[in-house]
């Protein structure tokens, strides 16, 4: 019983309320020994009594007790409660009055969308800062996981700076499509967004800055992976530098020739891409063509075909 009393007292002092241990013991003793209340029930009743008398919200008391495991962002699973340590990578525009903040949070293993609901009544988080999110719940929306910070969750700010890593992923397959918006493009000098028809969504008509990029679809026969190649990778894999591409476009009076050439040299071929996954895209850090098959795989498959 002493243990129980200490436990309760410790939990309350975490919340900044010091209750004389004798007082707790006395109440417990009365319940358990005199009125024959089971231990668990006695505990609950005593806790509730003090919560009421010190005006503490029940969920504040119980969140700390949560059994939610601390997990990595790459390991989140639908419907599970969890604790997450991460850095706010981006805050997005709030789209609904019931949402307090929405954005992207990341840890060493990846990034995920988070929503802090207005009803959670929590203080605002800042972009670039690291936090410990307790008792959040994971759900799936539109085929992607996201985390929800609700009224039973809590947020603690962390002093350390969590490095947002991106779990490196690998995809091996055929490049089956290069999508529009690839090739030689222009970006807004203000915000770096790709221009559409010479205009930035945010800043209107601007003098764009040339860049190279490829939005590719990789396909291995059982799944697809959208991949984005930045200038460095595009130059490496196509052998066409940005200057060459600009010159090609100037010669032809058409930016489209660059895209056509890329399609012609890349589509329908096999590549191994590695990079980090952001949303549905794989941001490619390296891409290499696959030149030949593994002859041991050939033998294995021949053997496998025999036994079917």
């Amino acid at each position, binding site marked *: 019983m002493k243990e129980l009393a200490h436990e309760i007292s410790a939990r309350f002092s975490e919340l900044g309320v010091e209750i004389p241990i004798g007082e707790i013991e006395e109440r417990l003793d009365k319940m358990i020994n005199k009125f024959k209340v089971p231990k668990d029930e006695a505990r609950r009743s005593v806790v509730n009594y003090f919560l009421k008398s010190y005006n503490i919200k029940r969920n504040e008391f119980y969140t700390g007790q949560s059994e939610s495991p601390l997990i990595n962002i790459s390991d989140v699973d639908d419907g599970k409660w969890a604790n997450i340590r991460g850095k706010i990578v981006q805050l997005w525009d709030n789209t609904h009055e019931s949402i307090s903040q929405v954005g992207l949070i990341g840890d060493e293993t990846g990034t995920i969308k988070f929503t802090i609901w207005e009803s959670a009544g929590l203080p605002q988080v800042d972009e670039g800062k690291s936090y410990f999110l307790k008792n959040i719940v994971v759900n799936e929306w539109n*085929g992607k996981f996201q985390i929800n910070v609700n009224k039973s969750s809590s947020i603690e700010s962390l002093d350390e700076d969590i490095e947002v890593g991106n779990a490196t992923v690998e995809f091996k397959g055929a490049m089956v*499509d290069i999508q529009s918006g690839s090739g030689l493009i222009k970006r807004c000098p203000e915000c770096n967004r790709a221009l559409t028809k010479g205009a930035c969504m945010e800043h209107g008509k601007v003098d764009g800055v040339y860049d190279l990029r490829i939005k590719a679809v990789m396909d291995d026969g*059982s799944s*697809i992976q959208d991949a984005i190649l930045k200038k460095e990778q595009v130059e490496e894999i196509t052998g066409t530098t940005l200057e060459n591409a600009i010159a090609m476009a100037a010669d032809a009076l058409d930016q489209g020739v660059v895209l056509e050439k890329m399609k012609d040299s890349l589509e329908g*071929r*096999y590549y191994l891409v590695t990079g980090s996954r952001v949303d549905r895209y794989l941001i490619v850090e390296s891409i290499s063509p696959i030149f030949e*098959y593994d002859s041991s795989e050939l033998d294995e*498959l021949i053997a496998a075909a*025999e036994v079917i």
Partner: protein
Amino acid sequence: MAGYTREVARRIFAQEFRESNLTFKDGDDQYAPQYLLTPTGAKVNRVFIVGTLIEKEDIGTDSEYWRGRVTDPTGSFLIYAGQYQPEAAQVLAECETPAFVAVVGKPSTYTTNEGDVLTSVRPESLHVVDGETRDMWVIETARCTLDRLRSLEDLSPNAQRAKEYYDPDVKHYSSMVSQALKSLKETY
């Protein structure tokens, strides 16, 4: 476009593709994608083929309409590209035969007056590639086909439906795969 996901390009050998004749749609919506179900249970809305373009012919009357024949170790695919597949039609118009080509396209079927179903491919893209790419495709297609044969016993809806409709002879397809794989050995 909520919930839209791109269809995976399936890997199928020409022989299996030719022996497929069951097409259906998921749902009644007029924009619902059309699928071709193959005897080994591949539900196909897009294919990826790498093979040898051995014949090509402009069979159009008013505008260009190209027909190409692309072979793999088990048979050949017919490819049709017209004004709505300008990129593929242009490559067909310009390339020499024979050539290794990679095709990404949609399966389409045509029912003859006799009631036979002919399958062909309407290319989204068509490019000249090298022989290594073609060999890798054969390996990959073999692997995908064997995986499908193995899972024919499963209760997945595609496998079930393929079994009911085609009653496929597993040996027939495993020996097709085997033959395709062994053809790679001969060239090396």
